[in-house]
């Protein structure tokens, strides 16, 4: 339990008023159109979506799992956090292609990339999946807040879950993505300052950086400072195969779309950027801020390792960063620290509520239920859907309880393992078609349960199979379904592919589509238009 003074309450209440105030200030902008409610009008300079990326990807559970990893593995544990590395490649490849498609969501992209019934099935499936997934993410982030409030104030878990997500929902309903993005900027700056301050406090409490290093050597834990340790190719606690997986999956994943669940969040920010260049920059700098944050966190966590002599249990280690803030910050600053935790929490919840609502409104309601809906109607439905996603998050949050980590990893597996390669193929290979993509999703859902839960339970495969091995097994098994399906069914409609090619210029194996676009004279005509526009611009 933590004791709050008057100044602590002031920081907390002031922060909440500021956040909800954003809703009132940006109410008029948010209600102008669907593009404003969900994409802030598609005109933002790169640093706004970049800050929003950083804020959204710093959730309440992030310092928990990051602290747990670094407390256990030292700097080697930071490789886990490099999943954000997909942004390194995506910023210059898939973000550029996706921004040019102008698709509001990944589901909408599916109907631009694929054709016919298969494309519509994918769109409907992805939209429904994303609505459920965003409820789930808001639920697990929400219950992490429940855990923090339980640790701080002794509240029942559901109170922390319901109270702060509901307050956050107020400004998301009112101002939509405008409210989300502006609040994210304030939250991003607040949390960045606090992360630096807490790390400095932790380092000071442990006697400074040199003392931390000396302490690790004295404890016989100097390996904690080595991020490149290894125990052989496939065996031991630090196998090279795991490292290869952790490097290959995010970085190669950047060539595709939706190779990681964060892509769906980033996709919204990519489309909110004012042009292709700003979209790429927002992705690159947002993730750069994330990895910079992780490096600063590592200082605080290793300081705790020295102070506790590495004796904390897994659950205690997960709360290491929070403990430093609450136990070492001076009186009056504890409320500021709590406000920054609220910033961390609310920025994620806000983005997730708006994103879930976007899939429900743009892809399900507007595209399938009421295609002729006015902009006004779209915004109104968007508000109602925000509430639906919020209520769904309560259901998932209470169901998850305290077992966050198991759920988190399985949800990630469901999302990325078997569909990782198909999500790259949809960008780089023209022949990969709607039925191949759809079959990959269906096969992944089935095979994922088999490999992760069912086969180990019956002793068919080992119970303790490392996750990186599971990943490669899933890649191979799912490929055995979608590759034959793709090759045995017809390619997507050439008109659709040519249109996509001319508009987005995808990378990779698009030779037949490019030749068809040239045969139709489309690329030459575009080049001519651009030449004229440039000559006119120079003349003017």
């Amino acid at each position, binding site marked *: 339990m933590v004791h709050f003074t008057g100044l602590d309450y002031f920081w907390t209440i002031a922060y909440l008023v500021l956040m909800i105030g954003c809703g009132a200030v940006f109410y008029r902008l948010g209600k102008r159109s669907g593009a404003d409610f969900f994409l802030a009008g598609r005109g933002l300079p790169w640093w706004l979506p970049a800050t929003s990326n950083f804020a959204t990807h710093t959730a309440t559970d992030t310092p928990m799992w990051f602290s747990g990893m670094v407390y256990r593995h030292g*700097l080697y544990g*930071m490789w886990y*956090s*490099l999943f*954000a*590395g997909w942004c*390194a*490649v995506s*910023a*210059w*490849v898939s973000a*550029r292609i996706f921004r*040019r498609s*102008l*698709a509001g969501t990944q589901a*909408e992209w599916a*109907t*631009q990339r694929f054709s016919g019934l298969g494309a519509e099935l994918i769109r409907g499936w992805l939209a429904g999946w994303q609505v459920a997934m965003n409820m789930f993410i808001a639920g697990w982030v929400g219950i992490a807040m429940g855990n923090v409030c339980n640790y701080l104030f002794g509240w029942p878990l559901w109170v922390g879950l319901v109270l702060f997500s509901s307050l956050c929902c107020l400004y998301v309903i009112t101002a939509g993505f405008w409210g989300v993005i502006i609040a994210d900027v304030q939250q991003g700056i607040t949390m960045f300052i606090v992360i630096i301050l807490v*790390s400095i406090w932790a*380092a000071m409490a442990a006697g400074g*950086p*040199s003392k*931390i*290093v000396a302490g690790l050597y004295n404890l016989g834990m100097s390996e904690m*400072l080595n*991020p490149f340790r290894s125990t052989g190719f496939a065996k031991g606690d630090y196998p090279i195969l795991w490292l290869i997986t952790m*490097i290959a999956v995010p*970085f190669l994943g*950047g060539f595709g779309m939706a190779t990681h669940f964060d892509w769906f969040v980033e996709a919204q920010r990519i489309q909110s950027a004012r*042009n*292709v*260049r*700003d979209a*790429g920059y927002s992705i*690159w700098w947002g*993730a*750069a801020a994330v*990895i*910079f944050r*992780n*490096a*600063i966190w*590592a*200082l605080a966590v*290793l300081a705790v390792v020295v102070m506790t002599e590495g004796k904390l249990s897994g659950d205690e280690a997960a709360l290491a960063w929070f403990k430093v803030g609450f136990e070492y910050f001076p009186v009056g600053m504890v409320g500021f620290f709590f406000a920054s935790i609220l910033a961390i929490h609310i920025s994620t919840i806000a983005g997730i509520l708006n994103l879930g609502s976007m899939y429900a409104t*743009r892809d399900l309601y*507007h*595209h399938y239920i009421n*295609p*002729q809906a006015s902009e006004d109607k779209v915004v109104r439905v968007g508000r109602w859907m925000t509430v639906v996603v919020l209520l769904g998050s309560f259901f998932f949050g209470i169901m998850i309880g305290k077992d966050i980590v198991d759920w988190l990893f399985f949800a990630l597996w469901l999302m990325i393992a078997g569909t990782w390669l198909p999500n790259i193929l949809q960008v780089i290979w023209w022949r990969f078609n709607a039925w191949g993509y759809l079959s990959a999703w269906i096969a992944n859902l089935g095979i994922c349960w088999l490999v992760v839960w069912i086969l180990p339970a019956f002793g068919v495969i080992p119970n303790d199979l490392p996750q990186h091995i599971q990943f490669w097994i899933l890649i191979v098994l799912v490929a055995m379904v979608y590759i034959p399906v793709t090759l045995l069914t017809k390619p997507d409609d050439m008109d659709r592919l040519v249109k996509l090619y001319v*508009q987005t*210029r995808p*990378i990779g194996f698009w030779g037949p589509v490019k030749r068809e676009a040239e045969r139709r004279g489309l690329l030459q005509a*575009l*080049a001519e*238009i*651009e*030449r004229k*526009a*440039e000559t006119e611009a120079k003349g003017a």
Partner: protein
Amino acid sequence: MSWIRRNWTPHEADEWTKEDWIAVVLSPFSYVFITFGVAMSLFLLPIGFLFLGLGILMTALMFYVIDPKLKAVSESYERKQQEYLKELEKHQRWEE
């Protein structure tokens, strides 16, 4: 660095070229070096400062290479964006 092209027409910038690949290769390295460079520098480890320096150098080089091309792509695409948005809304409303 004459082998790095910095003047692009919109049509040429639409193609994937070696400048894109240079950025794609440098970018992951710069993330890795910055991650471990910042962390190890905070512990005042000499190798950390070396990593951080490499990370900053790679980042600067990456933007030097890719920025002119991205500018050209953006300018050219923005001229056509309104037309594409109209088509997108037609598709959304099943009008095409």
